[in-house]
């Protein structure tokens, strides 16, 4: 009892008075201005779906895992999403193991509401076998250090881990197609979740003087403030949730002001999260490529013994090219050279390095599923040479395209594109799954699935050869 008394953190009368006086002159103790966020850093672990977020002194880790379970009876077509928080006693002397405190439950609830009610995570795509098997996504948030404003940081950690999580691909097989085969990551590239938008939580602190309002309160400010409010919005300006747990009453005009501020903050933070995730995805793809360095000869002969990991290279390309072009360029750089060469999709783009893709900027695109022919015979060496010549920088790295790999960029796109594209994407995915069975790599796999958007028929020139 004595040690507990000794270890409690206490606020002095001096600090309380000082924080309020300083705030009335617009100064905060760490030198920020009242509507400024602390420094945010988002890092990822080696595993997909693990993130570490630091907001000033607040430190939170998020993990996302998935499991196949039976769906709820009233929602047989939807997967489930659940959030668990762990308030480690090392984060704050007032946290205790065992029963979660009121603030712990509140934090879990705010993050959960932001994701579930706004339907940020697409649960219908998590269905594997309607009524029997769906994916249950579980988000674990571990609080490592309490420097104030746990809600915002926890929300960012949850979003960052969801964006980088990959679930194994499942296909139906066996007799009657009722048996679900879960493919291990070595066999088939795991898929990201479909996330429609990013709901960002922004917390405000109110002080005893009416007009005093701060964003992102620190631990000391939290002890002094008399009321708080958390608004969850996304970058599109939609208000997903608002939470005001008791405290002082607040004028309606103040609430509107808060919402306006919050939407500005939300777009900043969304950008930061997306940048961090992009960097991570690029690194991830790089990691996979490095593991399998293979060489390629420029005369067009291609080594067919590709490993699944290679395709992720295309991901990188896609991610990178996405930055430069509006349409994701899958596959062969050959396509980049001339609009007419639609069918070149299937040629061995493995010849072309990532850099080439970038400048390649394919203006044309390989059409929809209907127009490519997975049974093409291979690369046209002449064409290859021509394209190589037309390009400037080429790194003869070998990359095998795997259509499943392509799906990744496609699926991650939905977060940027409005909802209407997504249903088509999912539809495409389903059809594609049908086409690619088993792990054997043949030229078929070299054919890149077309980007869904450009499904409008391309001239079915099909074969390059």
């Amino acid at each position, binding site marked *: 009892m*004595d*040690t507990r*008394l*000794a270890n*409690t953190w*206490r*606020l*002095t*009368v*001096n*600090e*309380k*008075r*000082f924080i309020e*006086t*300083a705030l009335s*002159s617009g*100064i*905060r*103790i*760490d*030198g920020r201005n009242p509507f400024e966020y602390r420094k945010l850093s988002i890092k990822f672990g080696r595993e997909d779906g693990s993130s570490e977020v630091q907001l000033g002194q607040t430190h939170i880790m998020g993990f996302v895992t998935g499991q196949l379970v039976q769906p709820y009876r009233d929602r047989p077509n939807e997967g489930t999403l659940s959030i668990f928080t762990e308030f480690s006693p090392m984060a704050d002397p007032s946290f205790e193991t065992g029963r979660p405190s009121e603030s712990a439950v509140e934090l879990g609830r705010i993050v959960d509401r932001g994701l579930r009610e706004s339907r940020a995570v697409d649960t219908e795509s998590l269905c594997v076998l309607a009524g029997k098997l769906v994916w249950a996504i579980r988000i674990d948030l571990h609080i490592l250090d309490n420097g104030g404003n746990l809600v915002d940081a926890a929300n960012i950690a949850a979003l960052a881990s969801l964006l980088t999580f990959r679930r194994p691909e499942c296909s139906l097989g066996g007799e009657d197609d009722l048996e679900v085969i879960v493919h291990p990551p070595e066999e088939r590239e795991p898929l990201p979740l479909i996330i429609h938008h990013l709901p960002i939580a922004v917390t405000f602190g109110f002080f005893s003087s009416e007009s005093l309002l701060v964003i992102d309160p620190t631990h000391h400010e939290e002890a002094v403030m008399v009321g708080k409010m958390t608004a969850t919005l996304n970058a599109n300006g939609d208000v997903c949730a608002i939470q005001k747990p008791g405290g002082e009453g607040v004028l309606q005009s103040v609430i509107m002001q808060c919402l306006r501020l919050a939407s500005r903050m939300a777009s900043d933070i969304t950008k930061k999260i997306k940048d961090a995730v992009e960097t991570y995805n690029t690194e991830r793809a790089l990691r996979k490529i490095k593991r399998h360095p293979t060489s390629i000869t420029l005369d067009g002969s291609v080594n067919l013994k590709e490993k699944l990991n290679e395709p992720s290279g295309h991901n990188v390309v896609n991610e990178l090219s996405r930055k430069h072009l509006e349409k994701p360029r899958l596959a062969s750089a050959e396509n980049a050279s001339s609009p007419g060469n639609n069918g070149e999709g299937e040629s061995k783009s493995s010849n072309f390095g990532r850099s080439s893709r970038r400048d390649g900027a394919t203006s044309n695109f390989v059409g929809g599923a209907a127009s490519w022919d997975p049974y093409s015979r291979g690369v046209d060496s002449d064409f290859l040479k021509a394209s190589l010549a037309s390009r400037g920088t080429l790194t003869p790295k070998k990359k095998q395209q795997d259509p499943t790999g392509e799906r990744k960029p496609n699926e991650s796109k939905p977060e940027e594109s409005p909802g209407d594209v997504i249903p088509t994407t999912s539809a495409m995915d389903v059809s594609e799954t049908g086409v690619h069975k088993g792990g054997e790599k043949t030229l078929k796999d070299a054919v890149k699935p077309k980007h869904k958007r450009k499904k409008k028929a391309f001239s079915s020139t099909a074969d390059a050869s």
Partner: protein
Amino acid sequence: MEAKPSTANLVDKIVVPGDVVLDLSSMTNQTIKLGGGLRQECDSVSVIKAGKLRFSKPNKYWVESSQKRYVPCVEDTVLGIVVDCKADNFFVDIRGPTIAFLPVLAFEGGTRRNIPKFEIGSLLYVRVVKANPGMNPELSCTDASGKAAEFGLLKDGYMFETSTGLSRMLLSSPTCPVLEELGKQLSFEIAVGLNGRVWVNAESPSTVVLVSNAIMNSESLSAVQQKIMVDKLLQRIK
């Protein structure tokens, strides 16, 4: 372990527990005072706490290290927060392993009739009178001769917590570079406790915030770097 031939080797150097610092058999008829972090084992003095070995004339040795935890030592001046008021003691938190007691009469001219009233959460500048391991330390608001000597309640201002090493640096003489540079341009009042608590007061809140942040950031900087940092900060204000 063999004893080191001469202690001069280890003074101001980093030592770890187990290092033998002094060989007493070679020094006779000398009185040596051992401070924190050192222990006498028969004929040798060995280190029990990692840190830098320090020596001050004429004969005091101790080990200095910077930690966030404070271990109460006699004659330390610390900043405490009042936790509770009882009949004959105030309970004061000095950031040590246990709560310390401040007798109600330990003030200059203190009698049963004029017991000071402190509200919970007040900040006091006090001196440690007794600090035995395992017992609650005892404090006093007077110096050894019974005078007030600046001890007592600190009004207004802002308090922040740092490591014990930083507070020792702030109290060192000659004046620590950060404080010197800040003092050239700004006027402020500061109270430093050896338990890592620092109190700053000034006319305007911006000065207080500036001084506090400058001190908090100066822990790992050398003297020159501290000067540069303060210069930059002050220029930005101007």
